[in-house]
């Protein structure tokens, strides 16, 4: 047994932590995360030069990683700085392109930005109810809240093709894209397709889509762990500094215990993400990805709400970095299936 990172992953973590810590300080992060195009195109290039995207794909697909632990390392670091770059879309697109055996050099080098359109207004999590359809190689439908869609060059779109799902490649120029900032910063888009010219990437894609979602879930859970860890440290530091009634509020036992409860939940979160990352790509991947997303949904709410409450008014302000961490942690729950959705999946898959 060994819970240490391999040397390569440790190096990746170190270099990402240095780079991101330097380049995404909270003022800059907030500036780019809430103003068009809701990320920092110049830093996207630098981040990809560091190999952040190559780490997400296996060697035979042109990458240098692609395992659950590679994804975990990258996204935990992104979570620590609330990085608004559209890496999730790249990861999920890469999983689909790997399944299709497609060339993804342009994706992994960061030259072409991909976003994946799965969920729809009436089918945000469970994709069995998708209404996007294909006719004569043209796709019609509306994909809602496509993460990174505001900055994408290419969309990979899940569409109903008879009884199964297929994945089509649609150029952004052939879609009607309405981008916006999200509550927690970074961008998404409503993508409306009306007989949009499309190239079939994958037929009978249900299993590949499930794998892409599982990878996305491992990524989001890792991101949440990174953000929770930072927010918890911020809270503990504040408890030690803030004085009321003539002493640091961290000397009040009721707050000490609640800070410990946060820590306990974060450790549990870290553990379940390790398990989900280990199982990614295997036969039980879905079960463990869902376990992780459910646990992190619950832990995230506790950590975010308790962090705000124990800080008091200061964490209700835009100026205080902790408020942005709390927002990100809460909003992660609604990406790729929430606490309840994944609970029901665990119950079914068991």
């Amino acid at each position, binding site marked *: 047994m060994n819970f240490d990172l391999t040397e390569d992953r440790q190096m990746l973590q170190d270099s990402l932590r240095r780079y991101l810590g330097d380049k995404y300080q909270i003022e800059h992060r907030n500036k780019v995360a809430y103003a068009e195009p809701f990320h920092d195109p110049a830093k996207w290039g630098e981040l990809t030069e560091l190999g952040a995207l190559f780490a997400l794909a296996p060697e035979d697909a042109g990458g240098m990683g692609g395992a659950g632990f590679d994804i975990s390392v990258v996204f935990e670091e992104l979570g620590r700085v609330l990085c608004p770059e559209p890496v999730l879309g790249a990861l999920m697109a890469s999983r689909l392109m790997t399944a299709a055996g497609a060339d993804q050099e342009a994706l992994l080098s960061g030259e072409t930005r991909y976003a994946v359109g799965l969920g729809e207004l009436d089918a945000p999590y469970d994709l069995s109810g998708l209404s996007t359809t294909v006719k004569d190689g043209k796709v019609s439908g509306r994909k*809602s809240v496509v993460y990174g869609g505001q900055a994408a060059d290419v969309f990979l779109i899940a569409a109903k093709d008879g009884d199964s799902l297929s994945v089509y490649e649609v150029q952004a120029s052939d879609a009607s894209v309405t981008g916006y900032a999200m509550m927690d910063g970074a961008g998404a888009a409503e993508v409306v397709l009306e007989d949009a010219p499309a190239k079939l990437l994958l037929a009978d894609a249900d299993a590949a889509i499930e794998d892409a979602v599982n990878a996305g879930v491992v990524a989001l859970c890792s991101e949440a762990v990174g953000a929770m860890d930072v927010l918890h440290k911020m809270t503990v530091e504040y408890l030690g500094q803030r004085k009321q009634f003539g002493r640091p509020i961290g000397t009040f036992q009721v707050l000490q215990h609640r800070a410990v409860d946060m820590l306990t939940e974060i450790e549990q979160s870290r553990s379940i993400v390790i398990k989900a990352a280990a199982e990614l790509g295997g036969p039980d991947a879905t079960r463990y990805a869902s376990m992780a997303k459910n646990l992190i949904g619950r832990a995230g709410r506790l950590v975010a709400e308790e962090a705000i409450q124990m800080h008091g008014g200061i964490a*209700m302000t835009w100026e205080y970095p902790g408020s942005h961490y709390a927002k990100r942690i809460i909003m992660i729950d609604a990406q790729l299936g929430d606490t309840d959705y994944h609970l029901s999946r665990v119950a079914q898959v068991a």
Partner: protein
Amino acid sequence: MDLNFTPEEEAFRQEVRDFFAENLPDDIRDAVKNGGELTKEIMERYHAILNKKGWLATTWPKEFGGPGWGPVERHIFDEESCAAYAPRIVPFGLGMLGPVLQKFGSKEQQDYYLPRILNGDDWWCQGYSEPGAGSDLASLKTRAVKDGDEWVINGQKTWTTLGQHADWIFCLVRTDPDVKQQEGISFILVDMSTPGVEVRPIKLIEGGHEVNEVFFTDVRVPLKNLVGEENKGWTIAKYLLTHERTGIAGVGFSMLELEEVKALSKKIMRNGKPLAEDPLFAARVAQAEIDLEAMKLTNLRMLFTAQKNGSPGPETSILKIKGTVINQELKDLRRRALGPNAAPFPGSLSGSNLDVAPEGHANNAARYFNNRKTSIFGGSNEIQRNILTKTMLGL
């Protein structure tokens, strides 16, 4: 035991209901319903409508121009105004300063300020919290020093709600730094247009502007702006903390919120079925409904005690704690119901005709985050627990 209101109370309820049906303008109702900004203009217009009817100062006795209601009538008014999507009355002049002046103010102060509050001539805000004095309010440092026939005030207040609209601020200030903290505080009224008063906005977590910092630099106000006795301001502060707290549970707002959640869950579709049929979501709603049902009765029981004893007891802290937690849970359900479609930053999609949420719900995530304040302000829920520990448990 009889859980029914008297026929007189029921008749009063009908009267309030009819009043709102006939007099609440559509644009004000829609702004409340859709969580839009309640502008100064809207609030002043709404206050004027109530004032014309004599129902604006719900806690004031008749002698000062209030309706002279007891706790049950106020409760009925609160419930009906919520159900009609009427705004919450801005409390600083009407609910806070008014009662303080009635109990502690001079005849001259009562005669001058109270009619102006009723008529909307002055918008008041509250100068209590400071950067270093939140839960530990008595440690406040803003200093007022006598100089001739004036107070000279220096310091800073924060979390000043709607201070951007205010003409006046009532402040707790330190007038004697050499005695026990609680014994050196005074309650002083400051005209916001006095030189040296500066208001700076605080942007909130969800991007909105409700609260402010207020800075005082050599601000000179007349000695007669002191309310009550010098160095007895803490008594006033405590009076305000316990005065008319029966509305603090916000039961009316939560009842409305529950109806909104239920209606929303019938509209939102998940793979061909309404969200309301998702057993896990339905269980969350049911759980909140159970808690709210109990809260309604807890609220009424405390109302009954207040009616009987003439004043509410310290147990109203229970209403603050549980009332805010239930309302926060309902806000969570609103956001949760939208799933990923709660993500867009409010206003970010304006100009587009693409809806991501049913009408009135596009800002559900913003409402959830903004509402986290309720368990922090007005004496945080931790402070309420301290009060209960001392008063109810005797520990």
